[in-house]
């Protein structure tokens, strides 16, 4: 198993470089990489005990893989495969596919490693590859968005590095467990870096612009998996160290509410989805022990929604309400929106039930409010009118069907959710949400200011967030 693990981590990078040598085979090689990851994830689920590897010597790379990793790796594989199918006939160059598989590989590496330095390398590689993907159209706007993304993530990672060496100073190891007994400033700097990278809470407000202004397949990739590379280490730290668990949970609740607050008022489809990613990351963080399953359902649903939203006739909800949209596309939109709102029969339901079951009492009210907000914001998609006609690219349906099929299949991970009480609660939540949508939000004209999304404010917020975590860790 250890040999397979190492081969699995190295394989996407090998494939990525091979694509440059054999540009004719680009799509097939990328698909091979995604399938290899899916196969590995299934192997990981079959494995009974968690896998711990210590490569080289005492100070070498540490890897830790268990069920939680399995969910994240599976998400990564499915989303990459779907995005690839979507791009199949679009004439993208080999460069695009090479970067896609390198993002895939670096995110895999981030899911596997259990020490701060390997994590740093994995996150930076994913940042660089994501930069190249965002800037792929070479327009002024795409370059600016990509530059802003790289700038913010690199600045955050510099703080993270300082935090990592402070943790090393006390425990003489870079492993996650070395955070125990580290001074609060180490924790503050490391967590701030991860929160920024993962797009959580106010430090994650770079995310809406980046994800909404990228090309459709790139948005799906970014929202589906790349942000999870920043969130996963937070979950891992919370599981290893019980004392940081409350901090992670508080940020989970905070970001769930903040994201959903912006999402209900948003008038633009892709921005709404991006804000919603900020909110859903909160659900993943709110219950660290079961975050993996939620990450899987969120990855599937959010990438399919981004692919769908990219092919709607307009990005403005007001315009969309006046038009008839293609019926099969509307059905797909409804399935995805119902899943994310937590409707039974779809995997989103099981994930929500499992998360709510693992919440602490003080979190429950806030998370239920966030769930209602989710239903409100996705009512905007559900109550569009079907009946129109639109021709889509040949690769569109295979990609979306793979993701939505995954949503049905993922139910099998948690059948125990289907109890009368849970079903009633889920339907009630959605009912309240839709009522709220028709009474208040359908006609609301309030437009929230974007001042917090400006570049300088985003950088400035880093210092505030690290101070906040410092005091949380201190007390």
């Amino acid at each position, binding site marked *: 198993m250890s040999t397979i693990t190492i081969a699995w981590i190295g394989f996407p990078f090998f494939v990525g470089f091979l694509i440059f040598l054999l540009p004719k085979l680009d799509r097939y090689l990328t698909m091979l990489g995604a399938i290899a990851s899916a196969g590995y994830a299934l192997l990981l689920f079959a494995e009974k005990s968690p896998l711990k590897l210590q490569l080289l010597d005492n*100070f070498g790379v540490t890897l830790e893989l268990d069920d939680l990793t399995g969910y994240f790796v599976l998400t990564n594989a499915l989303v990459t495969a779907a995005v690839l199918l979507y791009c199949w006939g679009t004439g993208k160059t080999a460069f695009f596919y090479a970067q896609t598989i390198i993002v895939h590989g670096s995110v895999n590496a981030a899911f596997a490693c259990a020490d701060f*330095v390997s994590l*740093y*390398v994995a996150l*930076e*590689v994913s*940042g*660089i590859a994501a*930069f*190249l993907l965002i*800037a792929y159209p*070479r327009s*002024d*706007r795409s*370059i*600016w*968005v*990509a*530059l*802003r993304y*790289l*700038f913010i993530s*690199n*600045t955050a990672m*510099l703080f993270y*590095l*300082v935090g990592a*060496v402070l943790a*090393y*100073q006390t425990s003489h190891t*870079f492993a996650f467990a070395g955070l125990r007994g580290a001074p609060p400033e180490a924790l503050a700097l490391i967590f701030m870096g991860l929160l920024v990278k993962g797009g959580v809470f106010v430090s994650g407000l770079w995310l809406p*612009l980046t994800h909404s*202004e990228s090309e459709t397949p790139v948005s799906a990739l970014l929202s589906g998996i790349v942000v999870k590379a920043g969130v996963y280490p937070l979950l891992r730290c919370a599981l290893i160290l019980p004392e940081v668990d409350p901090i992670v949970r508080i940020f989970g609740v905070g970001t769930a509410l903040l994201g959903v607050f912006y999402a209900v008022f948003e008038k633009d489809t892709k921005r709404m989805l991006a804000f919603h990613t900020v909110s859903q990351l909160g659900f993943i963080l709110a219950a660290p022990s079961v975050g993996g399953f939620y990450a899987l359902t969120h990855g599937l649903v959010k990438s399919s929604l981004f692919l769908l939203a990219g092919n709607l006739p307009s990005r403005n909800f007001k315009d969309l309400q006046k038009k008839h949209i293609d019926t099969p596309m509307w059905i797909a939109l409804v399935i995805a929106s119902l899943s994310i709102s937590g409707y039974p029969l779809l995997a989103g339901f099981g994930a929500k039930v499992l998360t709510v079951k693992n919440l602490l009492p003080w979190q429950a009210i806030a998370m239920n409010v966030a769930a209602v907000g989710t239903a409100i914001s996705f009512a905007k998609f559900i109550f569009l009118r079907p009946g129109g006609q639109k021709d889509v690219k040949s690769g569109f349906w295979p990609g979306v069907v793979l993701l939505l099929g995954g949503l049905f299949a993922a139910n099998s991970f948690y059948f125990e959710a289907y109890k009368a009480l849970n079903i009633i609660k889920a339907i009630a939540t959605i009912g309240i949400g839709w009522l709220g949508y028709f009474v208040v939000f359908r006609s609301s004209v309030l437009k929230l200011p*974007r001042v917090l999304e*400006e*570049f*300088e404010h985003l*950088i*400035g917020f880093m*210092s505030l967030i690290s101070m906040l975590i410092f005091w949380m860790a201190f007390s």
Partner: protein
Amino acid sequence: MLEAFVFATILCGFLGIILKKNLVMKIVAMDVMSTGVIAYYVLIASREGLFTPIVSQVKNGGAYADPVPQAVILTAIVIGFSIQALMLVGVIKLARDNPTLESNEIEKNNTP
């Protein structure tokens, strides 16, 4: 004392990122910041001794520098350098349409 200087460097870089208007200056400020971080790693490595950690015949009382942070920061230097290069390429492209490179102007032109 040395530690204070290192932190001052990091802070200068950080403030430079926020306060400088020109995009190139922002990138230079980020480089200053990363220089500070690298210096901090070297400083931590030298806490227990200054000698290069190579086993040899020369006696020096075992006061070797810690090789681990040094090895780690070597990776970070390479990554930081490549990111810097990428960003400057992006800036070259942006400079065609925004010759002044003022970041708030670019931001205004490119946000929907």
